[in-house]
């Protein structure tokens, strides 16, 4: 009898544990649609918050013609709190908090920003766990898209003045903020910051001393590369190592070249997955990149070192004396990796990555942070409206490190010429396109695209094999 009893005890226990696990998982799935539907209507999600604010107050405010921002500036929401969650930390966080201080003082709204290096993973846990922040800062619209699809994001067009938005943003930005929700298209958020990607950095002083000139066309760029190689240096500093994200720097190159070798429509199709990676158009873009990357005389450390050099360390060799490399294509943020004693505009500067095919004009690749709203309360609306103004990042612009997507951010706010020219570049662009890999679904944009490019550059697969590998991520 005894052994039987023991077995039955074990079986009972096992069933119980299994039931606990099942309950834990099942619970999750059951509740998702419920909370999804609730956030579509404005009022129920207000109830979920712990704030004592009256939910009805938003309606009369709208009908009287005053926006939530006006109400906030009039001190109507004094003492309320708005929680915010985003991926930037450290110095960026300090600059952000400095920039919103005046607004907080005037309105009495306390914006509680929380930054996390694990934003991408944490935001999903928080939204699923029912503790979504009021506002979240998404550097990747692709990620935001998944929340929009499940109906958890508030449509900002429901309370914002469309005319004002049109006046303050380039239409491309507004289009990029429009996403497919469960009940049709909605405006998923507002663009608060941008960075320009089509930049080639160079050590300005040494560059001038060596007698080089900034190339205006792709052919001139290649000629300059060859000239530098003849003079004894590899021209390009390239590194794509970035831990688990190794390869992303290569995807930026492909996107930039795609914009220069094919039409914006094809680029959009490519980003949506309608134009496969195996197509000749994409293949041609990768070949253009390979002209530089796979030539061992053109890359510092040779092609092999590209995948093992950290993207942040790569440009540092440009500032050795004499420079060991001369050109580095990277987004505007890279200056934070430059040695600290360098003067922007004197020791380093950038030029626009020249166009390849003149018929596609001067396209510019950008990235940016979009603020999305998860809880609909009047003070959150007010804060969101505030973020559509250039004023909301004024001191951040002045302190450097950010480009405003808003039109009312004045050029004179930029304290360095280097950044002012970036803002102008983005405003004058004939085509403005967002970083494609950030728009693609995670399996491709943050998966096979990175991996495939890394494999190709390291030489483990050939071009066709790599493109097939990347395309496989779409399935």
């Amino acid at each position: 009898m005894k052994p039987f009893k023991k077995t039955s005890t074990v079986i009972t226990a096992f069933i119980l544990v299994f039931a606990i696990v099942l309950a834990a998982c099942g619970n999750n799935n059951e509740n998702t649609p419920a909370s999804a539907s609730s956030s579509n209507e404005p009022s129920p999600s207000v109830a979920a918050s712990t704030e004592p604010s009256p939910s009805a107050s938003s309606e009369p405010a709208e009908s009287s013609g005053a926006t939530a921002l006006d109400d906030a500036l009039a001190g109507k929401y004094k003492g309320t709190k708005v929680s915010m969650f985003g991926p930037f930390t450290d110095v960026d966080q300090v600059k952000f908090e400095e920039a919103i201080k005046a607004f907080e003082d005037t309105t009495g709204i306390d914006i509680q920003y929380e930054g996390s290096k694990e934003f991408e993973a944490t935001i999903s846990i928080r939204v699923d766990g029912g503790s979504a922040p009021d506002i979240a800062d998404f550097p990747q619209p692709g990620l935001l898209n998944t929340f929009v699809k499940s109906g958890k994001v508030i449509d900002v067009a429901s309370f914002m003045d469309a005319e004002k938005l049109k006046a303050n943003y380039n239409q491309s930005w507004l289009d990029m903020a429009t996403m497919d929700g469960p009940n049709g298209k909605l405006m998923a958020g507002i663009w608060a910051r941008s960075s320009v990607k089509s930049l080639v950095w160079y050590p300005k002083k040494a560059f001038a001393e060596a007698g080089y000139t900034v190339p205006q066309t792709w052919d001139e760029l290649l000629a300059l590369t060859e000239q530098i190689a003849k003079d004894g240096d590899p021209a390009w500093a390239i590194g794509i190592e970035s831990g688990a994200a190794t390869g992303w720097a290569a995807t930026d190159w492909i996107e930039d070249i795609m914009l220069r070798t094919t039409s914006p429509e094809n680029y959009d199709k490519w980003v949506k997955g309608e134009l496969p990676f195996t197509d000749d158009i994409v293949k041609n873009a990768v070949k253009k990149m390979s002209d530089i990357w796979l030539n061992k005389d053109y890359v510092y450390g040779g092609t092999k070192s590209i995948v093992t050099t950290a993207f942040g360390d790569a440009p540092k060799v440009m500032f050795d004396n004499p420079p060991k490399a001369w050109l580095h294509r990277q987004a505007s943020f890279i200056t934070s990796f430059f040695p600290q004693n360098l003067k922007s505009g004197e020791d380093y500067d950038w030029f626009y990555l020249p166009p390849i095919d003149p018929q596609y004009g001067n396209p510019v690749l950008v990235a940016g942070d979009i603020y999305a709203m998860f809880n609909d309360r009047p003070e959150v609306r007010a804060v969101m409206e505030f973020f559509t103004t250039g004023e909301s990042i004024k001191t951040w612009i002045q302190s450097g490190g950010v480009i405003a997507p808003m039109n009312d951010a004045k050029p004179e706010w930029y304290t360095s010429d280097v950044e002012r020219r970036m803002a102008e570049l983005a405003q004058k662009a004939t085509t403005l396109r967002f970083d494609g890999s950030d728009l693609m679904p995670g399996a491709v944009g943050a998966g096979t695209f990175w991996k495939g490019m890394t494999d190709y550059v390291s030489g483990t697969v050939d071009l066709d094999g790599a493109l097939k590998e990347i395309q496989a991520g779409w399935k």
Partner: protein
Amino acid sequence: MRRRKGRARSKTVVNVVLAFICLIWLIPTFGLFVSSFRPATEILKTGWWTVFPHKENVTKDTIQLPKETDLRQPIEVKGKAYSDAELKSGVKASDGSFLIWENRRGRTINVQQSGWTMNTSFTTENYKGVLTGKQYQITDTDGSVKTKKGSGLSRAFLNTVTVSIPATIIPILIATFAAYAFAWLKFPLRKTMFVIVIMLLVVPLQVAMIPVLRDYTALGLNGTFLGVWIAHAGFGLPLATYFMYSYISQLPKDLFESAFMDGASNFTIFTKLILPLAVPSIASISIFQFLWVWNDYLVSLVFIGNQPGVQVLSMKIADMVGTRGNDWHLLTAAAFVSMLMPLAVFFGLQKYFVRGLLGGSVKG
């Protein structure tokens, strides 16, 4: 005589093997320690082991080649032709010296001889940045530049202590009670419940995160110390209970029976007999639990978050590196600061740990 000799020899072998294993375990930590005192630019260029005297090629002379030398043709140096690739990685000349480019653009070549050298550039900047916080330049609306000081590790250090100590004491207290009950008390479903506890050992804690977070949101425990104490206690309990059970159940039965005869209640037996006897195992599970809580990132990330008032050390350190990891060199110093507390706990409790192990064996 021979036997004693053999024993001594085997002891030496054991000691040598142990010393070797210790060395292997310590080398990465030591490397980290050396790196934490080196400037970031140096870390990028040379390894930490170059701080020791070592043999390296030292430049003795520089040769200037004609400016118009074509790098894609064989290059003539001291009457002998070398290829560019050879000069890039360095090549041995006929007279035993070593030839390597100093500046390809300037067409200068270093002539090097092998010699002793060591790397002596050290700095305390990394620790300064970690302990007192970094400096940020902020331009104000009126165009004036002001310097803002970021926060150091002190606040996060205190927060981690606030999280760790209760999160170690709570589960171990409960586990010791439970272990006593499982081992010595008779009550219905005792075995079933114990097997459930054992089985919970294999359930990954990640499974519970979102459900627990939902409950916390409903209860308002999110982002509070109480919430994370409970979470850590819950996740640590199965192992602690099992660990304490295996020790307490091995205590001699007669001890409790005689205490019971003398009229001791269960609570008296527990406080007067079990607790003093179980000190070594309590100390060892405390070390485990404390280390786990101290180094934890995931549980804190989900249940407390990054608000400066509650942020723990592991998250603060991750933040210090900057949004894009540009200040990675601070990691070395920060890692050492965060190691201080676990080391102190380990050495503080290690006495009990060893005494417990010996206590059993000597009496035999």
